[in-house]
């Protein structure tokens, strides 16, 4: 027995981190659901989901023997259960209470591993919360609900369940159970006594009726005094669970046939519990899990099925029928379980299967994938040189597969941004409340996916911007009404895919950026020469300068002056860009653009002189070979291309990056799409599609506009990856290019 217990302890210790992270997910889900529920208080599905989450946390905690978690969560679960039954309706007070309870559950789970970590303050707060919960639930007089769904370890050893003793296991509903027992002849000889079984059962609750049938007892002259022919039936009103009740028979299992029938209302609850269960394919397991059936009875029924299968070639009895007949499982409950099975077989897509993967392992695989891509390119090069037909073909096939694996693997790291956005709901709610502002918060496009590491890094900057909107942008209800706006301010987080990038927009309908104040501050700080008035866009961007804050007092939330420049730096570190669009009195729109992935992209390789460049394939619209005749210099010295009636500006990489080489005989133009519109890039050699593993630029090259990274080609050469959007800005800017001076140089002169 001891070795068993040790092995169990070890298992629990190893599994604890998994429990904590899974519980954390449930807790997060609870918060999201609660906030959604505030918008739709009658949504039955939300209430069901809420209950399930709490129930799951409680059940898992029970397995780990985490009594505090179980006890507290049990009260929350009770309230949620009554809410989903429709007995209690959501009110703002209840909503806030539940949010606080969820925080407490989080605290309890986080400190679960340390049994002594419980501050007096927390435990006081917890007690206060419990009081409030009980005031709501017990005011109704209905006892708490708890099926033996997860086999809570806490109550297993204590068979004399007095629900008032406060042990960790949940108490069942007061229910009327029907128990029938027939004792076999050997009962006395095996040292057992029907009277003590009856006594034990009576100790579990209140016996409403008990009857001992004596028909099977032979008359005294024929009786063998040491053989047992007794049987009794009993109606027991108790809070005990099925396990507790059947526990009475644990010593007479061999000699006694017994039936324990759940109370009628219990069956309805069992039916619902079955519907709520996560995927469990086997009928018997499902019924055991919800407490409609004990494991022993299931084994008996399975044995019967097996025996009859072995005995005759005819169809063995169905397990559902057996359980109804042998184990007294109510027909409705069996039907519900069969229904659930049917739904699962049809592959109800509502529950997806997930696997937990350590992030480092995934990163390691992606790294290897990068190396694989490069190696593949190298092999292709050699294959081409060999001019060996079948080798080339095989190589192409390998490359195609590599590309597929690449897409699949990179996809593994993509998560919907909505998950991160949802976290903000709580912040917005609490912050708006503390500032006395009313805010409608909307999330649009949460399904847009982004690399997981980027999502994590973007969360803080986004939070800062959101807080900024709440603090500085959105006005109080009075101010808004005075300005002719709606009482409640509107704040949206929008995510959307664009060419090769993802756009995240924070939009509010507040007062916008006060440009006069910003300019004044900039003058005071010497950021701009006093008296010089830059363009509106430039004034807006001034708020990103370090140490800049126009807030008169540093508020608790933002405006400490370290915020916005860190935000910009974080975004630029992700190779993203941030653009502000402000209309005074109307609102502010902050646009953040991030590349979709940091790792590998489909590229289009081009050559200029001895140098190689890569363009993101997504942005390439068309290629015009031998276009030299069409590229002209206009009156301002800018190069343009006439294409089907439209005039496109053209970037000449040769002059842009001072590539030295002989002038080529002919040039080609790659037409690309950027945020600023289409334009052409003049190159000399077109080298075709190329899977590009992105390596970051060294610090030396960071100031070079238009380059976003580098890549190693199969030949070992280094190719520079062009930043199409940055090039687009360069080429469409209004500033004239003086002949011979590239915009690149000019910028360097300004910033150095």
């Amino acid at each position, binding site marked *: 027995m001891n070795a068993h217990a040790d092995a169990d302890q070890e298992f629990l210790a190893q599994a604890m981190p998994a429990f904590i992270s899974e519980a954390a997910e449930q807790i997060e889900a609870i918060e999201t659901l609660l906030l959604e529920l505030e918008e739709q208080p009658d949504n039955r599905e939300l209430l069901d989901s809420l209950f399930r989450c709490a129930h799951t946390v409680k059940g898992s905690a029970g397995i780990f023997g985490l009594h505090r978690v179980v006890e507290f969560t049990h009260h929350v679960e009770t309230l949620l259960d009554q809410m989903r039954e429709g007995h209690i309706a959501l009110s703002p007070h209840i909503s806030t209470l539940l949010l606080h309870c969820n925080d407490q559950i989080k605290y309890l789970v986080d400190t679960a591993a340390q049994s002594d970590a419980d501050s007096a303050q927390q435990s006081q707060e917890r007690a206060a919360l419990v009081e409030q919960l009980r005031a709501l639930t017990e005011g109704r007089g209905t006892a708490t609900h708890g099926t033996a769904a997860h086999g809570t370890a806490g109550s297993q050893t204590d068979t004399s369940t007095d629900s008032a003793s406060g042990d960790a296991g949940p108490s069942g509903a007061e229910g009327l159970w029907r128990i029938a027992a027939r004792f076999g002849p050997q009962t*006395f000889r095996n040292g057992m*006594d*029907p*009277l003590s079984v009856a006594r034990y059962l009576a100790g579990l609750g209140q016996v409403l009726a*008990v009857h*001992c049938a004596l028909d099977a007892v032979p008359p005294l002259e024929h009786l063998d*005094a040491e053989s047992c022919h*007794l049987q*009794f*039936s009993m109606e027991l009103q108790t809070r005990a669970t099925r396990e507790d009740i059947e526990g009475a028979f644990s010593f007479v299992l061999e000699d006694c046939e017994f039936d324990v029938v759940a109370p009628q209302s219990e069956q309805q609850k069992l039916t619902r519990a079955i519907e709520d269960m996560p995927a469990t394919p086997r009928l018997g397991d499902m019924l055991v899990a919800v407490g409609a059936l004990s494991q022993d009875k299931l084994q008996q029924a399975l044995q019967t099925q097996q025996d009859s299968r072995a005995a005759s070639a005819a169809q063995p009895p169905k397990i559902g029928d057996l359980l109804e007949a042998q184990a007294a499982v109510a027909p409705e409950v069996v039907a519900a379980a069969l229904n659930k099975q049917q739904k699962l077989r049809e592959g109800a897509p509502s529950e997806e299967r997930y696997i937990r993967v350590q992030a480092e392992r995934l990163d390691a695989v992606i790294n290897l994938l990068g190396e694989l891509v490069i190696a593949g390119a190298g092999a292709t090069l050699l294959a081409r040189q060999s001019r060996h037909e079948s080798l080339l073909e095989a190589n192409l096939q390998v490359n195609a597969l590599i590309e597929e694996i690449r897409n699949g693997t990179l996809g593994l790291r993509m998560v919907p941004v909505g998950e991160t956005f949802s976290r903000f709901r709580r912040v917005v709610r609490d912050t708006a409340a503390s500032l006395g502002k009313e805010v409608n918060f909307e999330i649009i496009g949460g399904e847009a996916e982004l690399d997981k590491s980027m999502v994590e890094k973007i969360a803080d900057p986004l939070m800062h911007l959101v807080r900024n909107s709440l603090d500085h942008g959105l006005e109080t209800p009075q101010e808004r009404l005075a300005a002719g706006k709606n009482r409640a301010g509107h704040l949206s987080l929008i995510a959307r895919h664009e060419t090769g990038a993802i756009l995240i927009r924070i939009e509010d309908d507040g007062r916008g950026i006060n440009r006069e104040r910003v300019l004044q501050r900039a003058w005071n700080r010497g950021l701009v020469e006093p008296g010089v008035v830059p363009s509106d866009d430039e004034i807006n961007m001034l708020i990103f300068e370090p140490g800049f804050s126009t807030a008169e007092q540093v508020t608790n939330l933002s405006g400490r002056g370290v915020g916005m420049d860190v935000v910009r730096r974080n975004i630029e570190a992700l190779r993203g860009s941030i653009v502000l669009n402000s209309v005074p009195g109307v609102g502010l729109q902050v646009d953040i653009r991030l590349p979709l992935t940091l790792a590998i992209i489909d590229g289009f390789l081009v050559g200029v002189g001895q140098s190689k460049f890569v363009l993101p394939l997504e942005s390439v619209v068309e290629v015009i070979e031998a276009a030299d005749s069409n590229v002209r210099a206009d009156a301002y010295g800018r190069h343009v291309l006439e294409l089907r009636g439209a005039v496109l500006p053209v970037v000449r990489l040769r002059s842009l990056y001072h590539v030295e080489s002989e002038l080529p005989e002919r040039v080609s133009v790659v037409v690309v799409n950027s945020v600023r519109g289409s334009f052409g890039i003049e190159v000399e050699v077109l080298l075709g599609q190329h899977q590009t593993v992105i390596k970051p630029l060294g610090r030396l090259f960071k100031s070079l506009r238009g380059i976003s990274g580098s890549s190693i080609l199969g030949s070992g050469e280094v190719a520079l990856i062009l930043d199409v959007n940055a090039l687009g800005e360069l080429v469409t800017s209004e500033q004239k290019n003086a002949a011979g001076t590239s915009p690149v140089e000019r910028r360097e002169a300004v910033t150095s």
Partner: protein
Amino acid sequence: MGVRHELPSALTIYTAVATREALLAWVEAQDGRGAGKLELSAAQVEEVDGAGLQLIAALGNMERPWVLVQGSEVFSQACRTLGLARWLEQAGALA
């Protein structure tokens, strides 16, 4: 009027065989006398179990009218627990 039979203080599996013998002898004797109802007393019963109660059940199944005229507290409680309270209904004074 027959002789009342007094059940032993230990009405359990351990004494079941002997008690049965005694009961059978007593019934036979009553039959011989042509007595009315068999009168059984459990006033002295201090220990009882299922086997003991079964004996009385078997007696009852002999198709002779019988009545429990008295029962000790221990005995009465056991009857109630196992679902044999109907035996006690006709009894006289119950402790």
